[in-house]
């Protein structure tokens, strides 16, 4: 009986070893994202579909791409566990992740220690690329670029007396603190009001009532989608007049916000990486494709960034010389890293070119530095946005 048990354990161990060994000759990519959201599922599906399409068209230089999608629920411990599984157990060549800055931050250390390239689809927190890992690349726009564009535009066109409220979420916090710091630096002003709320807050009116008495030029809200919509609606309920400009962080570009907030979204101003009212042909085609495939009416920058990421990965993989054997894993990983670092002047859905370079500095690794300034013209199901400007920031902007 006892011997039988030991045999079973050994057999199980051997199958695990066999399973890992059998899957050579493929390029393995692990993606950890917040899959428990509507968009998370859809762009997860989009990644899967795109890599399937690449495989159907003959793969990358003959090799198949295998995508392993995991959910981290926006929790750092789960994200770290996923990343560890990718790099040590699944032996992936590339890690994609994560959606949330608070998950990407610790994963950067995991991939740096294991020496696996990591490419980030959505996280905007500026510290991610400032850790000095030579293995990390960022496709979305760093918070340091957003804040610069926002501060300059807001300070010159709207005013400098601003009240800030933000939800406890790493990206919202980085965006809000960034704008505050930049207003200090560019115009020497302190916030008129500074308040924080919980991630899923339902009642912002006590903050808003206090802001109402302060006679501010603008109110900035950094939050996720539903709370942001509530905040905007409640700002009118407490009687903050319409000529006080409502500013928001890039989550305002997510489609549910204008649908939920209705008329309260009108005039809201934010910066993002992409707008679906972009009139370039590539953007129009992309909007059409997303509508047909995933029934997405209004394509936000989460989709465009995921798309750009796939294209960049495709280019890099095609350029990298990979052997794809068990022994060459480390060399292949380094080759992919160098191939991504060599991607330069990629023209995609992003409003400006995306370029990386070899040094492990934020200048090299924050690839996209062209935020779009967007204003909502109307809300509801058929909301409309207008593009105010596109600004390509200098590479070293916002660095000490």
């Amino acid at each position, binding site marked *: 009986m006892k011997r039988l048990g030991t045999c079973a354990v050994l057999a199980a161990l051997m199958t695990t070893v066999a399973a890992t060994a059998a899957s050579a000759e493929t390029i393995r990519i692990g993606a950890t994202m917040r899959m428990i959201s509507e968009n998370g599922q859809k762009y997860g599906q989009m990644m899967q579909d795109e890599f399937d399409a690449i495989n159907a068209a003959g793969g990358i230089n003959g090799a198949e791409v295998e995508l392993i999608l*995991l959910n981290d629920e926006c929790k750092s411990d789960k994200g770290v566990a996923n990343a*560890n599984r990718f790099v040590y157990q699944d032996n992936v060549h590339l890690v994609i992740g994560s959606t949330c800055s608070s998950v990407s931050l610790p994963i950067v250390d*995991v991939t740096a220690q294991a020496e696996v390239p990591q490419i980030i689809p959505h996280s905007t927190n500026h510290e991610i690329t400032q850790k000095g890992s030579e293995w990390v690349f960022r496709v979305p726009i760093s918070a340091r670029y957003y804040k610069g564009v926002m501060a300059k535009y807001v300070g010159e066109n709207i005013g400098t007396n601003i009240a800030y409220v933000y939800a406890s979420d*790493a990206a919202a916090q980085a965006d809000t603190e960034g704008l505050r710091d930049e207003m200090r630096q560019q115009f020497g002003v302190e916030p008129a009001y500074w308040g924080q709320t919980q991630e899923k807050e339902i009642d912002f009116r006590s903050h808003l009532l206090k802001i109402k008495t302060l006679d501010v030029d603008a109110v900035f809200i950094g939050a996720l989608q539903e709370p942001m919509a509530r905040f905007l609606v409640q700002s009118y309920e407490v009687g903050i007049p319409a000529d006080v400009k409502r500013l928001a962080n890039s989550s305002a570009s997510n489609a549910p916000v204008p649908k939920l907030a209705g008329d309260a979204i009108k005039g809201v101003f934010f910066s993002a990486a992409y707008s679906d009212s972009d009139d370039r042909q590539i953007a129009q085609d992309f909007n059409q494709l997303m509508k047909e495939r995933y029934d997405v009416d209004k394509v936000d920058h989460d989709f465009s960034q995921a798309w750009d990421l796939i294209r960049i990965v495709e280019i890099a993989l095609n350029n990298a010389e990979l052997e794809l054997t068990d022994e060459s894993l480390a060399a292949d990983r380094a080759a992919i890293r160098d191939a991504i670092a060599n991607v330069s002047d990629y023209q995609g859905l992003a409003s400006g070119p995306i370029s990386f370079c070899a040094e492990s500095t934020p200048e090299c690794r924050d690839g996209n530095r062209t935020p779009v300034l967007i204003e909502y013209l109307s809300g509801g199901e058929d909301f409309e946005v207008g593009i105010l400007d596109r600004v390509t920031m200098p590479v070293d902007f916002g660095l000490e």
Partner: protein
Amino acid sequence: MDVVLQAPRNGIARLAAIHPVLPWIVAFVVLLPLPYLTTNNYQIYLINHIGVMIILATGLNIVKGYCGQVTVGHVAVYAIGAYTAAVLSVYFAMPFWITLPSAMIVSMLFGVLVGFPSFRLEGAYLALATLGFAQAVEVFIRVTDYLGSASGLGGIKAPVLFGFSFDTYQTYYYLMLPFVLFAIYFAFALLKSSTGRAFMAVREDPVSAAATGVNVRRYKLLAFVISAAYAGMAGALLAHMRPGYIHPNNFTIIEMVVVLLMVVLGGIGNIWGAIIGAILVTIIADLTRDLYHYQLLAFGLVIVGTVLFMPKGIGGLIDRYFVSRSFVAARDKTAERVRTQLDGDGEG
């Protein structure tokens, strides 16, 4: 099956007969080569995680399983332990050997705070009071810049001993192992002592416990403080593990439910149960990682199913197995004796 379950039991008993600490030393030696039996680093990472969870669940088991106090605040104390260690390491550059005891001490102070309502409250009321405490702590961390608020607190240094840094999962395992074994050993020793019996008396009936001279308040508070020390230790070990980053999302009510599940699945009031629970839950959670939200659905179903159909957990099943075995053995023995007697009578 008999052999598999009975052999280690007898072995442990034989070792313990020589010296009570001997089984633990043997366990330590047996567990030493574990990282070399795994196929990759990820599995060692999981094992380290299981270690933290064992300490956390054992602590919860002491206050909940043995002393019968329904607390939902354990995860808050765990968070306090982790953040104490993190703050001392990040802002004051203190070594692990100071942050860990400090985390335990601070946690114990908060253990007093969580335990205090238990003087007057029971069951549902105590659960709600501790839930309020847990929520307040979580919100406080989220809005306090000093604690990293929503961005999390990173850069917690790896423990260093005589210039040797425990900065890989493998080395961290060897740091963790003595702590885990000591935590389990202490739990066993505690529960065999008069304190442990007092805990159980309080659990069964506080009124009659008081009548027999047990200072109910003192023992309730003691149970909370000891379990808080466990949570503090688990928190500090989590904080210092690579990549040395903690975030309030790791200490929410869901994490509390996970620990509860470990204790309940393993068997409430059964130390081995909590350990088995910690191992099983971590491994099952890992195996179901590819299923996204179906994983959470399955997790919910396991919780409900365990409570409904297996309220004593796996530990309870094992216990029952041994109880029924000794019952069968006793019955067989009696039957044998009766038969011999009858045979003797027949001859006579």
